[in-house]
């Protein structure tokens, strides 16, 4: 066991801790209204491990939705994860169960932190990847369990703590800019986000991720055709 590796993974994952605990609690509190034992919320955090999908799930369970409908709805809601995988194919060095665990644990936040680890030496990177994913998973399960266990009796002064997640993404935008040093991809992202928000606020993330892939394919095609760098 390499202690410095764990400390560094813990430091990396801290913003996710501050985001996932309040968010997990919010899910748990919502779930507790369904009247099931709180351990079911822990099971959901443990084996589904997806924020938006679990919030949607509470509504689907309340309506006793058909299982086929559930599968389709959750697949579509999480379809953006396919794009995360697409950008990581060459960037996961691990093999075997560790690789599959990382893929299983690929939430928005875990993906973001993995992109931050790219500059590390491969051996250290691989070790940190799994630890960061496992810590995020742990925080999420803790949050879900706490919320469902304590239910609505909980009244912590945590209002606003969930801002840690946009803050984390913003830090990663800054770091991505430092690595890339070109404003165009970021402006394109902003334009796509604004367009998706106008088109369909509820499905904003899925629409914008699909648009992003389409635009990148066009840019790539344009670069090949004109033999000039666009991005």
């Amino acid at each position, binding site marked *: 066991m390499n202690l410095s590796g764990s400390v560094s993974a813990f*430091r990396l994952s801290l913003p996710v801790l501050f985001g996932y605990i309040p968010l997990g609690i919010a899910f748990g509190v919502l779930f507790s209204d369904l009247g099931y034992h709180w351990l079911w919320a822990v099971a959901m955090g443990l084996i*589904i491990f997806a924020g938006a999908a679990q919030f949607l799930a509470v509504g689907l369970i309340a309506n006793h939705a058909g299982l086929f409908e*559930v599968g389709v709805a959750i697949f579509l809601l*999480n379809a953006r994860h396919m794009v995360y995988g*697409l*950008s990581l194919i060459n960037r996961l060095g691990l093999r075997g169960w560790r690789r599959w665990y990382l893929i299983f644990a690929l939430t928005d936040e875990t993906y973001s932190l993995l992109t931050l680890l790219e500059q590390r030496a491969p051996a250290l990177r691989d070790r940190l990847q799994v630890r960061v994913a496992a810590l995020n998973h742990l925080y999420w399960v803790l949050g879900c369990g706490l919320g469902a266990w304590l239910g609505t009796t909980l009244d912590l002064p945590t209002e606003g703590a969930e*801002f840690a997640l946009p803050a984390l993404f913003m830090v990663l935008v800054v770091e991505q800019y430092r690595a890339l040093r070109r404003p165009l991809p970021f402006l394109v*992202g902003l334009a796509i986000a604004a367009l998706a928000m106008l088109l369909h606020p509820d499905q*904003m993330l899925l629409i914008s991720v699909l648009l992003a892939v389409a635009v990148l394919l066009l840019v790539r095609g344009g670069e090949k055709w004109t033999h000039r760098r666009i991005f």
Partner: protein
Amino acid sequence: MDAQTYLLSFILVAALATFLTRALPFVLFSRHSDHPLLEFLGRYLPPVLMVLLVVYAMRDALLSGQDLLPSLLALGVVVGLQLWLRNALISIGGGTALYMLLVQGVIALPG
């Protein structure tokens, strides 16, 4: 189907659907991992996606206008701290602390 069986099947279906979205690209494209197109996407998707995630995480404030000013102020603090000290924990902690103080009314904004 009783309530417990329904919930158990529900969780298994939801878990499988989620895992599928995360695993499909690795299953479908691992053999072509050296394709230049995947290399291109690997380089440019992360910056674009991070911008999308910031906007997504702020969507409630952006759509309703509620807590919009605290959000934008706190986001500005995050960027400023990150450019200045380049310590992610300080940037995120500072921005989040400011946001919490603002939305809980500990610090009041003029107007």
